[in-house]
């Protein structure tokens, strides 16, 4: 276990040997280490953040299995119930406010930036909690067809979504997509910010105590380039949420993800990295991870005047 800045200073001040944290991943509601036994130690300004799991394709597979098995049950819950669970996430995050701020600072943010990112993240959880039982009313429709049928369209979750989290905003970027993805009943496997994975892990600890059913949110840590071929070609993933990159390498990765996503026609959604503006929270992000289902049924034609037939 690598020592962090904080633990080092604590050691000096209190002469007490701090307990160092083992950063694990979050799969199916549990916190396993990577089955591969590999780890990596991302650095910020030359200082190591600690040892993080280097997820393998098997970890990916296990997390997709967990997400798939959790999906129907999560989608079957009422919007009201999902709403309360997302709100519970906000409550749990609020309780860890200080920790989240500290960790963002460790990962390179200024105090102000860190506080703002944590605040926004909590606000976002409250925001999407409110949408769970409302977005359907905004996006569904009763369609006035010309024949003798009742016809309506509504949104259904796409299924299992793989989310490559924002590199720059390790907490806000993650929650800004995880929340709209799961609001409708999808389950998600996230790959945490590669260089700043610490907040994602702490977030899972909040999620684990938020009544979010096991498998609804899963978080891996590791290298995007190692995993991208595996998740983009995985046939049991329905959709991929990406943050756009500004690098050539990043663009190459995105292109290959798009190519490999074709085999089972994953819906690939790409977003800008900066999740700070308030208009980056909106119900259209929920709709991005939904399918429109249209249902027809005949309407019997008999009125007070009798049947015209």
């Amino acid at each position, binding site marked *: 276990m690598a020592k962090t800045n904080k633990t080092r200073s604590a050691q000096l001040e209190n002469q007490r040997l701090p307990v160092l944290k083992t950063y694990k991943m979050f799969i199916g509601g549990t916190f396993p280490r990577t089955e591969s036994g590999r780890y990596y130690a991302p650095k910020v300004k030359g200082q190591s953040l600690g040892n993080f799991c280097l997820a393998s394709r098997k970890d990916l597979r296990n997390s997709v299995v967990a997400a798939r098995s959790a999906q129907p049950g999560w989608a079957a819950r009422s919007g009201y119930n999902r709403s309360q669970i997302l709100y519970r996430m906000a409550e749990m995050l609020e309780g860890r406010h200080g920790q989240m701020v500290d960790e963002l600072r460790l990962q390179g943010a200024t105090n102000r930036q860190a506080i703002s990112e944590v605040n926004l993240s909590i606000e976002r959880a409250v925001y999407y909690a409110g949408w769970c039982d409302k977005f359907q009313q905004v996006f569904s429709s009763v369609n006035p*067809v010309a024949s003798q049928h009742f016809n309506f369209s509504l949104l259904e979750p796409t299924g299992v979504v793989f989310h490559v989290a924002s590199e720059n905003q390790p907490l806000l970027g993650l929650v800004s997509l995880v929340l709209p993805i799961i609001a409708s009943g999808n389950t998600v496997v996230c790959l945490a910010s590669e260089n700043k994975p610490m907040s994602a892990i702490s977030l899972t600890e909040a999620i684990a105590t938020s009544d979010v059913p096991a498998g609804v949110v899963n978080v891996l840590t590791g290298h995007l380039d190692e995993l991208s071929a595996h998740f983009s070609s995985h046939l049991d993933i329905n959709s991929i949420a990406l943050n756009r990159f500004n690098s050539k390498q990043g663009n190459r990765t995105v292109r290959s993800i798009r190519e490999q996503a074709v085999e089972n026609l994953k819906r690939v959604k790409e977003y800008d990295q900066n999740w700070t503006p308030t208009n980056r929270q909106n119900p259209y992000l929920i709709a991005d991870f939904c399918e429109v289902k249209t249902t027809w*049924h005949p309407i019997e034609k008999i009125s007070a005047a009798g049947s015209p037939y």
Partner: protein
Amino acid sequence: MNQPTDNHWPLTEALESRESIRLAKSYGLFVNGQFIRSSGSKKYWTINPANEKRLSRITESTPKDVDRAVRAARNCYEKHWSRMKPSERGKYIYRIARLIQEQSRELAILETLDGGKPIRESRDIDIPLAAAHFFYYAGWADKLKYAFPNRNPRPLGVAAQVIPWNFPLLMAAWKIAPALACGNTVVLKPAETTSLTALKLAEIIQQADLPAGAVNIITGHGPVGQSLIQHPDVDKIAFTGSTHVGKSIQTALATSGKRSTLELGGKAANIIFADAPIDQAVEGVVNGIYFNQGHVCCAGSRLFVEESVYDQVIEKIKDRIDTLRVGEPLDKNTDIGAINSKKQLAIIDQYIELGTAEGAHLYQPDCPLPDSGFWCLPTMFTDVSQSNRISREEIFGPVLAVQTFRTVAEVIKKANNTRYGLSAGVWTNKGSKIFNMTSQLKAGVIWANTYNQFDPASPFGGYKESGFGREGGLHGLAAYLALK
């Protein structure tokens, strides 16, 4: 009893007259408001699949032609169409709808001649729905911001659209109408075997006096579509066709990441419960698979029957199949027309052989078929299971694969056990069962106690490998707008 003693009452052939048809010997390309010659010299014959006779010569576009069409569309987009008052755009589209209605007879006959579908269907379904589609989307042109609250809907630019041969004019309408209404311009490529009604639509667009280049129609085979879709200056790709081609298009788009909508194949489950209105269900099954010779992506090709009513359902389907009249598509009494092409017939025939080889039990009516042309009898396979290829792969022909089931849970599992997810049907008289089924089935369109209904106001499109994006209704607008 008294006369007549001969009960047999054969309906005589009632051919639709071809007199009203104005068919040119040869067609150019519709670019920038004009019919033009190709930069190349290649032409090919489009034939009547019902007798293999030549109808007209169609131009094989060159990459240069494609470029010319895209440039015309771009130019019109920049200078006219995107700048026009939306209500004026709407009025142009209304004109198209009206002109299609006026010329519906001619369009119906051409559709039938060129594609092989029965005149009853082209006359009563394809053409009226095409007109309705333009009419519906015309009205959206100046109301887009009400469809997407808190967004600022903007057109995307030039839409490249490639459509299939099963509903030639209707698919053109599905593609062009929303694109235009949202302020985009269009380059459309119809399928190589069925270009005539698209070219007639080009004439209509001329008559409607749309700004030159708002709609461009280029003809030819697959490579023409490919070069259109890969043209660097198109902003949006819309494709309807096979899952195979759809995937190759999507792969080609990986570099640019351009927006696309894909409406691809299907292997829909049609489910009959014992408590269903059985006769209407049987009618729905027959309409679900034999409509348009089964050349329908949402065809109900997998039938699941609850075992307790299996025997009577099968008997009734056989009875109904026996009344279907297969033959000359121009005969108003024809129920099943010609298979669209020799190539498609070969594919269907292969699957019919395969079904028999897989051990399924074949039923076909005893019905005479014409000597020339491409024909396939309505076919039903019983004793099929999910493991048979005929119940997993899209056949795109009049071939029904029947399986049985016992419980709700079982049939949900089997119905969703497919890579596709375009449509599904469920037949039961019990309301709560319907709502359970329609929410459990993973498909974009669910018909409950009905099948193969279409309407411009109703969104259409698939889950999973049946594609993405929706066409029709308010939801169909999103595919042609940037929502910032």
